[in-house]
Every structure is written in C-alpha cells, then in structure tokens.
C-alpha cells in the first residue's frame, strides 16, 4: 500500500513537473549521501526523490520540519510513505532535542538524506545563506558524500502560500560529490556548498 501511494505521488509529480533530471558528474548508487538543495516549495523533496532510481528511493530520507509534517495526512505521507526524518525548526524551544543527533540517527548505516540547508523556503529567485547543520553533520560523518542539488522552477508549481499546484516543467540537477576539506572553516565550507548549487543553475 505504501509503495502504491509512493508510486502515485511520483506519477502526480511527473504529470505536474515532467521528469527532467540532469547529472553533472554524479552517478547514483547505494553509497550513503546527503543531497543538499535549494528550497522554495513543499514539493522540493518529492522532486529529488522522484529523480532518483527507484531502488535508491527506499534508502533516501528527506529531512522535514516537524511542525508542518507531523499531523494528519501529511504525517502519513511524510513519515510512512517517504520515511522522513522530522526535526524541530526552533530547537531552542526544546533543549533536549538535538537536531544533529536526530540527523545522525536518520543516516544510520545505510540511509541517505535530502537536506535543505537554507532552513526555510525562499522565493525561488535567490538562495539564502546556509545554516550550519550541513557542516556539523559532514564533520561527524566524513564518509558520507555531499551532493549539491539544484531544483529549478518548482516554486512556480507550488509557491509559498498556495495550496493547489499548477503544471510547470521543472528540473533537478545533481552536481559533483563534495566533502569538507582538511581544516576547512565552517563559513568557507558553507559558502562553497552554496556556490556549488548556484553553479548548477548554469546547466
């Protein structure tokens, strides 16, 4: 049943967004990865998920905001169908909840993550500065490859504040895998990661 729902969601995503995927120096396989992408729509992670080969989808978990995805139908879709890792958006409000631990847990021994380091949805035109979670996670798990991913045009399918989607051809581009360099500072790395996504825009 869950597989069927997942297939249905992917079919719906294809009807709305088409199936354009570009791979720039990246071959999908079972290795553990963190796909980090620009964020402008609730549909973003579905598009990335749909862009992966089906055998990898079961291993790839989106990271999503708990306050939005933790109720009703969204909870069913997010947790049961997509196996999302839910994190608190304002961890200061709850000191016992450590986001990085939750993410490490979510990665485990075989899973990959889809992460939106901007932290919140933008307008689609600009990419906000990245939050530090990506850096901290990458330092703790240097074996996991970081894949810059650029999602184009999804903000026009379902913009912030709208509840019904319209069809519009979108595309997902995956870039070359990257790692935190030896002794690389947080700011420098986050800047480099953000630029890697911006570079994919040219493709």
């Amino acid at each position, binding site marked *: 049943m869950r597989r069927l729902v997942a297939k249905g969601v992917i079919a719906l995503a294809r009807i709305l967004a088409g199936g354009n995927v570009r791979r720039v120096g990246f071959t999908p396989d079972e290795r553990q990865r963190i796909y980090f992408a620009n964020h402008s729509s609730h549909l973003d992670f579905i598009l990335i998920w749909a862009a992966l080969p089906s055998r990898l989808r079961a291993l790839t978990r989106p990271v999503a905001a708990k306050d939005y995805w933790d109720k009703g139908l969204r909870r069913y879709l997010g947790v049961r169908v997509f196996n999302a890792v839910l994190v608190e958006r304002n961890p200061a409000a709850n000191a016992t909840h450590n986001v990085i631990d939750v993410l490490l847990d979510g990665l485990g021994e075989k899973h990959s993550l889809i992460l939106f380091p901007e932290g919140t949805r933008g307008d689609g035109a600009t990419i906000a500065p990245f939050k530090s979670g990506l850096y901290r996670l990458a330092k703790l798990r240097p074996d996991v490859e970081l894949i810059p991913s650029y999602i184009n*045009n999804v903000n026009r399918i379902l913009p912030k504040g709208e509840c019904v989607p319209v069809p519009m*051809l979108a595309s997902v581009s995956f870039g070359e895998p990257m790692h935190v360099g030896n002794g690389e500072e947080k700011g420098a790395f986050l800047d480099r990661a953000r630029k890697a996504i911006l570079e994919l825009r040219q493709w």
Partner: protein
Amino acid sequence: MVTMIRDRDTLLLFGGVLGLLVIATIIGQSMRIWRRSDVVDNLNARIKAWWVMSTVFALSLLTGGLGSVILFALLSFFALREFITLTPTRPADHSALFWVFFIITPLQYYLVATQWYGFFSVLIPVYGFLFIPSRIAISGDPNAFLERSAKIQWGLMVCVYCVSHVPALLMLQIPGYEGKNARLLFFLVVVVQLSDVLQYVWGKLLGRHKISPVISPSKTWEGFIGGIVSATLIGTALWRATPFTVWQTMGMAFVITIMGFLGGLTMSAIKRDSGVKDWGSSIQGHGGVLDRIDSICFAGPIFFHLTRYFFT
C-alpha cells in the same frame, strides 16, 4: 456519434501509414550502417518516436470518438505546460493558471465530447479572455499586467482552443458521410505531419535558400516547395477517404500544408524570443509536444471551419 471504423477503406489508410513507417525505418537503418552521423541518429530517433505516435493515434481512432477527444485533451495539457513554463508568469497568476489548466482545458474538451458547438466556439475566446485578466487583477499585482494576461490567453488559444478543433471534426454533420468523421481527423493529421516530414526531408536533400534565417534556420524554400507539393499530392491521393471531390481534396490538403508551415514558423518565432531551440524534451528526437503539434495548431481550426462552412 461516430461508430468504430473497421471497414476496408480505413484499413487501407492504416496500411498506408504502416507502409510509410516500414519504408522510413528501412531507409533510416540503412543510412546508419552506411554512414553514421548525428543527423542520421536524430532521424532514427524521430522514426522510432513516429512508430509510438502513430500507434497511439491509430488506437485513439479505433475507439471511435472518445479516445481521440482524450488524446487531444492530453496533448493540449502537455503543450500548455510547455508553453507556460517558458512564459514569465508571476506568483499572482497562480490561481488564474490553476483555472486554465484544471477547469477551462477539461471543460473545452468536455464540450467537444458532448458536441456542444455553440459553447465550444466561445468558451476560450470570450469567457476565457475575460476571465484571465479579471482573476489576475483580483490577485492585485499590476507588474507587466497586460503582458501576463495576453501571454496566458495566447497559450490557451494555441494549445487548447486551436488543438481542440481536431477532435471537434467528429461533431460535423456532413450529408452522406455520417459515422465516417474519424477519417477526416486522420486526413488532417496525416497531411499536416507528412508535410512537416517532407519539408524536413526536401530541405535536408536540396535546401539552399533560407526562408527566415533568424527565426528558423532549418526552413528553406526548397524544403518548403518540395514539402508542400508532395504532401498536397499524397493528401489528394486520399480523396476517397474524405467527403470531398478530387479537386476539393487537393485544395484542402494545400491549405492544410500552408497553415501547418505558418504554425511551425510562428511557434519558432516565440521559441527564438524565449531563447530556446525546443519547447521541451518529452519526445525523443523531436523536442517537446508543442514542437510536434505546432503545425496542427494552425491547420486544425482552418480545416474545421472550411469543412463546416462548405460541407455541412
């Protein structure tokens, strides 16, 4: 309503298309063995896609009416998706776009299916035309307002209104031709697509003088004349399948090929303005859906109205 078409004449039409595909495939594969190049690879990709498109089209015709209505509704939907993707819309257009895709487009094809001609012919040019700017105005963003309204309306006219005239051929009541309208649809689509293909082939073989180098570098006078003449002659040979006489069929085929050419040229101009080569990439070797049906968009309504005015 149109009944299933299974008689001898129809089988001959399908057989003719099958024969053309087989010949094209043999030529394409021989060229691949003889001298492989990007042009030949693209040609073979196109031929392969033609097999799929012809099969889908033939199956839709075999269902009688409804299959064709559904097929062209889907073509409209995907063509409009390509068109709007390349049109700079703003967030305030979102609701108008939702109506365009999910209410107006299905309603237009519902009117085709129920053969309600009066409403079919005014839904988009009158109601759609007034609705779209009103809905955008309610959203309250005046930036490039006229441009946005006009572009969305234009996309709806070309991708939905014009294309819907192809299955609308099924609603024409032509004396002595009852139940055979699906052949009219076949005639239109075959002539317009053959004209595209033959213009391409003649252009590749003999093309020297460009018609409009800025808008469409691949269109040449040699390709144009060769394609129009040969497609018109093949169309004329199909006269038995139509309600027209030989000379009338020739006239219709000629108009169809000319309109098809103008459709291709016009849609190319929009592509050049947007800085793209193709509308999409969903059909291997051809580009997007709109790249394949741009000629039908222009030929469909004119063929529909000529037939309606002179033969019903």
